[in-house]
């Protein structure tokens, strides 16, 4: 989509409506928000612009969240990507999508598996210095061990990950009001 004019064309609007399930009004509001966040008017958000929201900058998980938005690892997120990731948080979005989102949060190196190293990086981000390496390792080992139920290869594939979450109420955990 690249650099954008100041408003959405009707075609773009209907396309986004179809792919994301947002109503036109929600899209317009989010677009307004997107433009507000896009301080340098490039039509894309970089991580600095994300972190200009103090509340996000204070969130330990922020780097992972931004990484999920920034699919191409190009440090730019266009409105389409922005909207698509947000749309996962709609209450009526499918379970599968929400699990996939959670999986991507953990899959730091983006190789399709949650390895102990991935989990370590995410956990380290979340707990900072307040958990010792030993404790962290214990937590990671037992977690991976218990979840690695299908092929026992020491890392979690998406089916294994989904298996762990199969009884979790994803809708209540990964939904927000738009």
């Amino acid at each position, binding site marked *: 989509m690249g650099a954008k004019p100041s408003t959405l064309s009707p075609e773009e609007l209907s396309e986004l409506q179809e792919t994301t399930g947002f109503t036109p009004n929600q899209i317009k509001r989010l677009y*307004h928000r997107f433009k507000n966040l896009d301080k340098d008017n490039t039509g894309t958000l970089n991580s600095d612009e994300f972190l200009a929201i103090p*509340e996000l900058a204070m969130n330990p*998980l*922020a780097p992972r969240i931004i990484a999920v938005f920034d699919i191409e690892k190009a440090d730019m997120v266009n409105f389409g990507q922005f909207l698509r990731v947000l749309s996962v948080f709609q209450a009526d979005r499918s379970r599968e999508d929400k699990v996939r989102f959670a999986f991507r949060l953990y899959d730091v190196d983006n190789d399709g598996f949650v390895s102990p190293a991935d989990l370590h990086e995410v956990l380290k981000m979340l707990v900072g210095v307040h958990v010792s390496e030993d404790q962290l390792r214990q937590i990671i080992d037992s977690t991976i061990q218990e979840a690695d139920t299908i092929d026992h290869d020491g890392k979690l594939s998406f089916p294994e990950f989904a298996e762990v979450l199969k009884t979790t109420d994803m809708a209540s*955990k*990964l939904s927000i009001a738009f």
Partner: protein
Amino acid sequence: MSRGASSATLLPPGDASDSASSVSSSSSTTTPPASTTTNTNTNTTMTALVDAPAGGLYIPRVESSLHQFADSEPQLVVSEVRTPSNFVEEKMAKNSSWGIGDAFSRPTAAEEKDAIQRKYEELISEEFRLQLTRENNPSYKRKTQFGFLDLAPLARNAVQCLVQDDFTKCFESARRDPWNWNFYLFPIYYLGVFFRYFILFPIRLICLIMGFVLFALVMPLTFLLPEARRSRYQQKCVQLLATVFAMSWTAVIRYHGTPPPRRANQIFVANHTSLIDVIVLMQERPYSIVGQQHVGVVAFCQKYVLGSMRNLWFDRMAAKDRATVASHLHEHIQDPTNPPLLLFPEGTCVNNEYVVMFKRGAFDLNATVIPIAIKYNKIFVDAFWNSRIQSFPQHLFRLMTSWCVVADVWFLEPQTKLPTESSTQFASRVKELICKQAGLVSVAWDGYLKHVKPNVRDKEARQKIFAHNLLFRFGMNPKPAPAAAVAPKAQATAATSSSSSRPADAHTGAWMSTDGDVLPAEDKKSL
């Protein structure tokens, strides 16, 4: 592992709340068999939670979740004993390698942020708390497993603030919804536009220029007067100019209440929407202003127009400036012949819908604080100066091409700091008064975050809460807190060679307290 949980089992039910009694009783208690162990554990932890100043609201749910923890894993392993020496080692290792101990104990600029931080921590921990207590799925019963969605509150919060966040909404200009698409309103609207831009604006501009010329002519003359009378006439000149400015946007300002007679030790504080606040207030009486040193046109006015008002300009980002300003302020208010001091404790312009955190500087001086509430009516023009998208001349142009600027100004009852209050509490009390009078929403955010990134400490504190929750689930001990306040506790527990009731402590401190203090006590002390 499960060090903390096992140590709690040494206590008889009902004693964990008082550490002294728990220490003494635990020394005489032998470890019960495994099956009762878990029950005891649950009970003691529960009691600790109940006895702590936690709101009754959450306790039933906490109980049930703790039962789940305990029931699911009956085998608890008694782990190594923590001796004071390895405690100290851990502490030293921590301080040297992370440098976080420093960050926590360093008081510089830390106290300013406490209010937001605490509020925000509460928000996050509230989510954790709800999440922990709401859990009813099997993966959480297995204590050995990290729940992959433990981070859900953080993820939700992150996405939520991408959609809308409390901070940026304080600085958003009002969105104008067109209402005039109507066959007779539309022409009238355009007639109005023509009138405002091509008739009103030139007249106003000419008046303003004439005012400036007059000011430039009269002001030098005041230097011919004897020094004693000079400043009074200079103040009159400045007031005249303020009136001319106010006329240039046909300001309709209603002043409510009367400020107290001029005495020493008075400070006027107001909520801040735009630099025109100064003009609106100056019109009524002269003030000395404390504020940010600007650039461009504003800097010119600061230097030459307001030069006679004994103002204090500083750079809000320079800590050295801030320190000297405090002493200047103090000097200034001692002398009642100086113009009264006016300052905007928010430190930045807010959109007149919200009021952000009041910096406590003005409230530190033991002076009488006279709150001024300013509310602009947005019916004709939004008086918020959004400095990110407008320069000040642009802002003035917008005001001068509007029909008029309507505002209410309230002088509230003078306030003094109560003996029981800290400056921060005093500041927020005054802020609430202003919010209430002007019908604004009070927000705990520090307005300076508009210009600077948040301190790492804020993130750090969030990580700490997450860590505590995680360790609690795994029955591990939290790493020792960085403050020295932990030391006595460590000694007390060392006597019975167990770190008794530690997890419960950590949790009552970290997420069970409802008094708004989310950080454990030892951290608060060091902040």
